[in-house]
């Protein structure tokens, strides 16, 4: 059997599905697509990517400044530059500026291509992009002026701004669903399950987080626990996994190892993940049963996490050699490992005995960077490097991608290791009953190393911006396609 069995779900459906869902996309696309549609899709994808790149640079520049302040607390301590105002700007803009906008751009591209159709509405896609950006700009200004909704992590923006973000989500959900509805095949490719699911769930998250009636005192603590975790795991995770399901088969020109495993991971993720939020509030006065449920389901999460990761890794199996030729694949490989390690670490952290040491320490900061950076950001970059050149016909230079990759990898490695070790030292100081200030003193060298890692990460983002420039404005066709030839067709 040759080529076009690629993304079919079961062998019987070969003829019907494969034609439409051929990974080489547009070449075999249905009649619904024209060159004008291609250009429209490409410009949407480019605009989302450019926007996200801006936020990445801005938010991580702020992050670098924050890291520096741990060693120099009096540096730029003025009102609008004080640590406590910049910190939520860093987190919200990496989340809702960079990662969200980049992932939605990718989701549009993947939806249209995997369904062999054009976007339902380009206008809606532009409207969504405008709304995302308005929310991020307004949120940044509000936080800097001190309009912070109670330091409630990741939902600090004043509620009207969070409604703008919700509007952006609704527009996106509508557009994605309507695009997938135009597909000519019966099957819906897995990526779209994840992206549509992610957008719909996040609409619910945003609504639950903004309604005030059940958010008094401890009630709000319950919502915070739910929110912090679901905003990460039901938004960024499914969208990033959606990228994996599309980009890995695409780069390797071979089908995903097991479609059924992907479906299983989808439903188990949905059933288990929402239940583990309260593990951020272990030992808090939240009801003990709620905390225990959270621990139990943190363990259950190993099913979708290991299942999903195995699926990606088995798809890549036998292609280790190709990774050397394909930096997009390297990015995605790191992303998969980040997903596997970060999520498994999350499970371990959820045990009460572990929490007793690590909770409140910098270990948690290391963990969130392992997941949001090692997993989500690498998935975003892998997706963009694999797919944006297909949309624009322009590639970044190999050196540029290599620089981005290695600086980001080494930087985040230093970052995560230093905070994991430092956080453990900090937690042990507390357990040993030392005067509190000892834990502050002991963290100093680890803060310095975190800064070193952070600097490398930031520099890699500048290179990324340059690469995005080359993929959009650069000369056409200056590098090889990110898509590897299918196995067996490689010249010996």
């Amino acid at each position: 059997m040759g080529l076009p069995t690629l993304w079919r779900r079961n062998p019987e459906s070969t003829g019907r599905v494969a034609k439409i869902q051929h990974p080489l996309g547009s070449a075999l696309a249905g009649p619904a697509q024209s060159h004008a549609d291609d250009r429209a899709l490409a410009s949407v994808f480019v605009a989302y990517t450019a926007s996200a790149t801006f936020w990445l640079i801005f938010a991580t520049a702020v992050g670098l400044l924050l890291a520096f302040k741990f060693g120099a607390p009096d540096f730029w301590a003025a009102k609008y530059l004080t640590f406590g105002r910049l910190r939520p700007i860093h987190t919200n803009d990496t989340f809702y500026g960079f990662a969200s906008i980049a992932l939605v751009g990718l989701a549009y591209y993947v939806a249209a291509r995997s369904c062999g159709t054009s976007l339902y509405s380009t206008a809606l896609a532009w409207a969504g992009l405008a709304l995302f950006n308005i929310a991020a700009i307004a949120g940044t200004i509000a936080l800097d002026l001190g309009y912070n909704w109670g330091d409630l992590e990741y939902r600090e923006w004043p509620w009207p701004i969070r409604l703008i973000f919700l509007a952006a989500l609704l527009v996106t959900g509508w557009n994605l669903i309507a695009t997938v509805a135009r597909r000519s095949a019966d099957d819906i490719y897995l990526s779209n399950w994840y992206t549509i699911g992610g957008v719909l769930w996040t609409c619910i998250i945003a609504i639950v987080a903004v309604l005030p009636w059940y958010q008094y005192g401890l009630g709000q603590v319950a919502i915070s626990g739910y929110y912090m975790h679901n905003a990460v795991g039901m938004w960024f995770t499914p969208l990033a996994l959606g990228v994996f399901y599309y980009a890995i088969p695409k780069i390797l020109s071979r089908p995903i190892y097991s479609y059924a495993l992907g479906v299983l991971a989808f439903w188990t993720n949905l059933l288990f993940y929402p239940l583990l939020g309260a593990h951020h509030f272990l030992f808090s006065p939240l009801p003990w049963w709620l905390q225990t449920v959270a621990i139990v389901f943190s363990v259950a999460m190993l099913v979708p996490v290991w299942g999903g990761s195995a699926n990606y890794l088995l798809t890549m199996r036998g292609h280790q050699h190709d990774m050397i030729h394909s930096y997009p694949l390297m990015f995605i490989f790191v992303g998969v490992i980040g997903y596997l390690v970060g999520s498994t670490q999350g499970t371990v952290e959820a045990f009460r005995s572990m929490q007793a040491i690590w909770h409140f320490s910098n270990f948690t900061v290391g963990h969130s960077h392992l997941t949001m950076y090692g997993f989500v950001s690498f998935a975003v970059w892998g997706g963009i490097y694999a797919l944006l050149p297909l949309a624009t016909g322009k590639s970044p230079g190999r050196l540029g991608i290599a620089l981005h990759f290695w600086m980001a990898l080494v930087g985040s490695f230093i970052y995560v290791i230093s905070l994991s070790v430092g956080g453990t030292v900090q937690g042990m100081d507390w357990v040993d009953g030392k005067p509190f200030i000892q834990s502050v003193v002991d963290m100093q060298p680890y803060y310095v190393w975190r800064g070193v890692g952070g600097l490398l990460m930031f520099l890699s983002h500048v290179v990324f911006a340059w690469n995005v420039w080359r993929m959009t404005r650069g000369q056409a066709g200056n590098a090889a396609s990110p898509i590897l030839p299918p196995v067996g067709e490689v010249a010996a």
Partner: protein
Amino acid sequence: MNKLLAIAGGALGIYIVIVLLVAVIPAIELSQAPAGPGVTALTPLQDEGRQVYAANGCGYCHTQQVRPLDEDKPFGRPSAPGDFAFQTPELLGSERTGPDLTNVGNSKPSDVWQYIHLYDPRAVEPESIMPNFKFLFDVVPVVPPGETAVPVPEAFAPKNGKVIPTLQAKALVSYLLSLKQSPIPGFSTAVAMGTATAATPPAATPAPAPTGYAYDAAKGQSLFTANCAACHQASGQGIPGAFPSLIGNTAVDDADPTLHIQTVLHGAHGVVVGGVKYNSAMPPFSGQLSDTDIADIVNFERSAWGNHAKPVNAADVAAIRAKGN
């Protein structure tokens, strides 16, 4: 179309059910949790201070929740649901770059300390990495009537002019001083609030140290660092005009330890030390520290920085404690 409806609708429906069960319904119930005994709403000024706290992101470095773990004992008793009745938005926090503040109104009850610390944390805690909040203060050439200048130590004070707190700083400090756990009937608060060693025996333990002259110097110093150094400084020199020096101090460097022990047990206010009247308060420690702990601290102070006073033992402390305030 049907398939799309099944996946999108199914995923959405299941999610809504789960969210109602694990988030919204518990939250509705918890929102109605009644206030614990002695837990009261904030005054308007304190409430404004709470907003200053949130606006400037104090919550990213400070928690306000005490867990039922030994390591959390320095911060008070474990938080109870009733403690949070008036806390919206909640400020439990998720990181302890700085210490938990649940009880800071008890452990640092002096507004002067809070002002100096906010103006420049390094002025009272040299190793601190907390940012300064100078923007919450004004520097004026002449202190206006009705205002009091903050006695910032010279090395940290502006070259010209006096430091006075803005309204925001006053609100913030009044909020910080309101942060006190209310005692829960039947729950022992004798666990060390503000003490470094969580495992210290409760005050009721019969006094050991039969010789009376041997004391645990390392423990004395560590307890001093955790409980006293914030005001009297690790150097023992205090902060002129705010916290008295303990070097050659008439209460400390004196053969009769009564005043020394009394001050530590019951606190002090408005005392004249070395001709200077101190208006900021020294907190009482009888509730948090055992007799042995107090003896260790007192002995440390009586022998450090060139002081040479007769040591005390836990029995001395117990005797003065027994006399009451």
